[in-house]
């Protein structure tokens, strides 16, 4: 059974690097295979990394407020690239300003993301979700933690 592979990065013109470092560290600690494309990554960077590594999930961070614009269309790009069913998670400070979380979550679900996380989410929370989602999809039975 393969290790689960996650492509990790910060999208758009966003340079917030600290959370990205911690996510990489936590995913590795949990036994996952991590491809960290780092900050300032374009949608194509994410797609290419996922294609190259046959990743199970893409974790997109957006902190700086342009997430709504930057994240739009990624699911469609995945479909075009033939990885339409890859798990797409988004987290960070996804929109500009302090907004009601349910609104933001709906927004990102509507954009084709499987899950979206509010500010301050600890990596562990999302790793558990990832385990569940992968288990549900049935292609792997690995448990990260």
């Amino acid at each position: 059974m393969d290790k689960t592979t996650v492509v990790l990065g910060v999208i758009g013109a966003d340079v917030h690097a600290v959370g990205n470092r911690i996510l990489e560290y936590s995913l590795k600690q949990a036994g996952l295979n991590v491809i960290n494309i780092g900050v300032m990554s374009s949608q194509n960077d994410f797609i290419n990394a996922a294609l190259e590594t046959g990743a199970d999930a893409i974790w997109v961070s957006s902190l700086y407020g342009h997430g709504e614009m930057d994240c739009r269309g990624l699911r469609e790009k995945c479909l075009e690239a033939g990885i339409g069913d890859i798990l797409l998670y988004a987290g960070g400070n996804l929109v500009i300003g302090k907004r009601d979380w349910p609104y933001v979550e709906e927004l990102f679900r509507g954009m084709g993301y499987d899950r979206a996380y509010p500010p301050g989410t600890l990596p562990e929370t999302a790793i558990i979700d990832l385990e569940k989602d992968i288990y549900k999809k049935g292609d792997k039975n690995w448990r990260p933690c």
Partner: protein
Amino acid sequence: MAMIDKEKFLAERQKVLQGWPTGQEVDIKEAINYHKNMDQEKIVINKLLQARAERLTLIQPRAGVALPAEHIKLLKYLYEEGEADLLPTTIDSYTRQNQYREAEQGIKESEELGRSMLNGFPAVNYGVKVCRQIIEALPVPLQVRHGTPDARLLAEITLAGGFTDFEGGGISYNIPYAKKVSLEATIKYWQYVDRLVGYYQEEGVRINREPFGPLTGTLVPPSISHSIAIIESLLAAEQGVKYLSLGYGQNGNLIQDVAAVQTLRELAEHYLHKYGYEDVEVTTVFHQWMGGFPQDESKAYAVISWGAVAAALSNATKVIVKTPHEAMGIPTREANASGLKTTKQIVNMLCDQGIEQTTRLDLEKKMIRLEVKQIIEKVMELGDDDPALGAVRSFEAGILDVPFAPSSYNVGKVLPARDDRGAVRFLNYGDLPFDREVKAFHDDKLAERGVSEDRDVGFQMVIDDIYAIGKGMLIGRPRG
């Protein structure tokens, strides 16, 4: 490197101004005139020098939205309700990456949706005239705040637009704000900006320049940020800049923070004099904690207050204020004003109290001086006494190394961690040119923490420290 030759500079200007249609609005002679006719009250450096003389700490927010009318309303509110002494115009992230097309798109979406879809004000897209509308609408001076590796066009437009203070620097707006832009390039871009400010200066227009002190904002040891501030000061002075505000981001241990602010001006003046710049005026800028904030607003107020305390007690010339929304997103104007008012109350209550020079304060200052000396000497050695060359080579060699920076031009070996009193120390020195005395000091301090927490000194401490303030602590103690 010396001052950029005037002819060469003027030629480069023509190219820069073609970067976006609004560049054509810039007429520097007219702009100099505009500045000369400006109200003295609206010139940043006047306020800063007065505050420095009276030992006051001024307060300034961060703020910027996509649409000019909204931006003006916001700033007015922060002045009237928030009691801000100085106002900013924070530039959006697309403009910072010279992505003026994306910025244009953001403006459109903002107009359509009636809310700002940009995380700042896209000054380049709006051009000189709109900048002046902003300046003229407000009774206090304005500064441009951004994070732009190549800010040449932004500087041209905003300075011609009447701003009298410009943040940034070739290192401080590259290493924490970019991934793949070469340091050589950004230093050149910023020499242009400094030369532009120097040009205004030659013509009798006083523009203040402020390197971005906090860098990545996360556990940056003072000697790292001080060294970079000093190099950027030398670079700026070389291009004719006469007014410098040097910044420092709060770390949270009061004594270390006070030591940092006190040594910042002292060391900068020392090196400026040493390299022949006798007539540069240095003021200081204290940034309230720049790392991850608590989600809870009441706790955020505590972090804001504690930053205001350190700013006041260290007698920084100004303090850049966070808001209770920090962990959540760009603040509403109300939240922004709240951060300002909290800060104002603290600064007012503390301005007459002062702080004594104690043994611990002396020790912190001594260590900062020692570390900065070892870094700067090595930088100048590597650069054959040219700070630009020195900076480039030192970043290559890890002599300069900023923790958690996204730039691939940063070696990224240095790791900081808090000691048992919360002061930020070096856990990993990377290739920093420190001698035994310095290393023994940091090692001891961290060993002390290890003992008190009964665990190994190591990376887990760094992780815990990154989360700590957000979780209501200063030091990331092991849980349970």
